[in-house]
């Protein structure tokens, strides 16, 4: 598996798109930090961008890599290697290379700004951890979609829909249902509804850390009230881990029956 991981990783690290992605974050980091001069505001802006963008890029890279390397995967399948190792290697290769683009792209401007000495280093590292989680989650989800869809165009469409659902539609439905049922106690509902969306969950995770959750919305306030900051953090983290593990398990189950 490590060998496959290594080659997928090298292959992606050398593609133009990894650089574009890396340079985008690099520019974003520099612009936000050096033109803004307020670190916590910069972190919030970054959060808003990362939370929408990393899932999108993860989704697109995931489906694109799967369909583009289809024939090569067939060559690998004819080698004496276990099926699931091939796909786990590819999956980790994509996720790691995207994570590297993110961490380096944002890490370099922050280092240049001298954040290692400031207190914002924790907020910032949380941002990177959440971004990495989102990479792993959405690459896994998009790999699931690609594995289940033979047709490239359809697979791409479903993957983008999946992203749109989590990034936009889910929040819309969530808000509408809050308004519709505002005569009922909605604490538990909103809490559970948040857990089913990794993007919402990541947002709350960062907001809890920034200590402005009470000001910034209903769900954040509930999370804070119910769990207090540390337990809430732990819970959301473990749910994010579940969001990685469950799609990976489903991927392995699908692989057992899949024809190539």
């Amino acid at each position, binding site marked *: 598996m490590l*060998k496959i991981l290594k*080659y*997928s990783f*090298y*292959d*992606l690290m*050398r*593609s133009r798109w990894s650089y574009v992605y890396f340079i985008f974050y690099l520019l974003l980091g520099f612009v936000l930090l050096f033109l803004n001069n307020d670190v916590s505001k910069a972190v919030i802006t970054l959060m808003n961008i990362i939370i929408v963008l990393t899932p999108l890029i993860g989704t697109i890279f995931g489906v694109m890599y799967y369909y583009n*390397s*289809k*024939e*090569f995967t*067939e*060559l*690998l*399948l*004819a*080698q*004496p*290697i*276990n*099926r699931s190792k091939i796909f786990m290697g590819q999956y980790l290769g994509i996720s790691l290379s995207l994570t590297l683009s993110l961490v380096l792209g944002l890490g370099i401007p922050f280092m240049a700004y001298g954040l290692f000495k400031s207190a914002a280093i924790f907020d910032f590292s949380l941002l990177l951890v959440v971004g990495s989680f989102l990479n792993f989650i959405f690459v896994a989800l998009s790999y699931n979609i690609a594995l289940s869809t033979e047709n490239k165009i359809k697979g791409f469409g479903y993957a983008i829909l999946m992203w749109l659902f989590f990034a936009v539609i889910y929040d819309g439905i969530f808000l509408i249902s809050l308004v519709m049922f505002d005569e009922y106690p909605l604490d538990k509902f909103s809490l559970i509804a948040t857990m089913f969306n990794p993007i919402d969950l990541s947002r709350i995770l960062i907001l809890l850390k920034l200590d402005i959750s009470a000001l910034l919305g209903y769900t954040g306030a509930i999370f804070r009230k119910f769990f207090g900051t540390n337990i809430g953090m732990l819970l959301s983290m473990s749910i994010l881990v579940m969001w990685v593990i469950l799609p990976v398990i489903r991927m392995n189950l699908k692989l*057992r*029956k*899949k*024809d*190539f």
Partner: protein
Amino acid sequence: MIEFKNLHKRFGKLTVLDGLDLSIKEGGIFAILGPNGSGKTTLIKCLLGMVIPQKGAITYNNKSVLRKWDYRNDLNYLPQIANFPPNLTVIELIQMVKNLRPKESNEQVLIDLFGLNDSLQKKLGTLSGGTKQKVNIVLTFMFDSHLIILDEPTNGLDPIALIHLKELIQKEKAKGKTILITTHIMSFVNEVADEIVFILDGNIYFKGSIEDLKKQTKNDNLEHAIANLISKQYA
């Protein structure tokens, strides 16, 4: 050496293999023929473990291959379409495949034979279709295995490379290897194959030597004999 027993494979409503039985003994060149969509590639992919049959058994050297993977160390496979990661160079790809198989390899001889020395440092995405197929052939023949499976090996090759490929196949045959070939080019079959396996509608329709086939169809030309086989079925 290879034994297919009562093999069934359906893709949705489409039945591709319908209770196929076939046994292939060790040594020699077997051409697997049949019209488009008759199940040639599916049969091969079942043997490779890429397609999982709904019913039936496949054994290789008397051991079942279903859901196993280590038996693949003893076979080489040339896939139909050669498409590699575009950002790796040729030499990196060769190193990678070597890395994946704990086995002796003789890639340098093959690289010289197909004149790939100048292309070694090039990225795979920049190679032409024929050159990719040459790389594909190097990857297939560089290991010493008892079974070699070639799916449309002549695709995109220039005449010189084709001659080299034929020599290569004959050389492997002389070492007592078993070689399975699927192709639509009858002159190629005529030249290299010892035995023909003809698949039609998911079953073996004919198995025997080229001579037998010509005798049975009363036709001296292989191409016409095969056409005869197909049209008889459709009539």
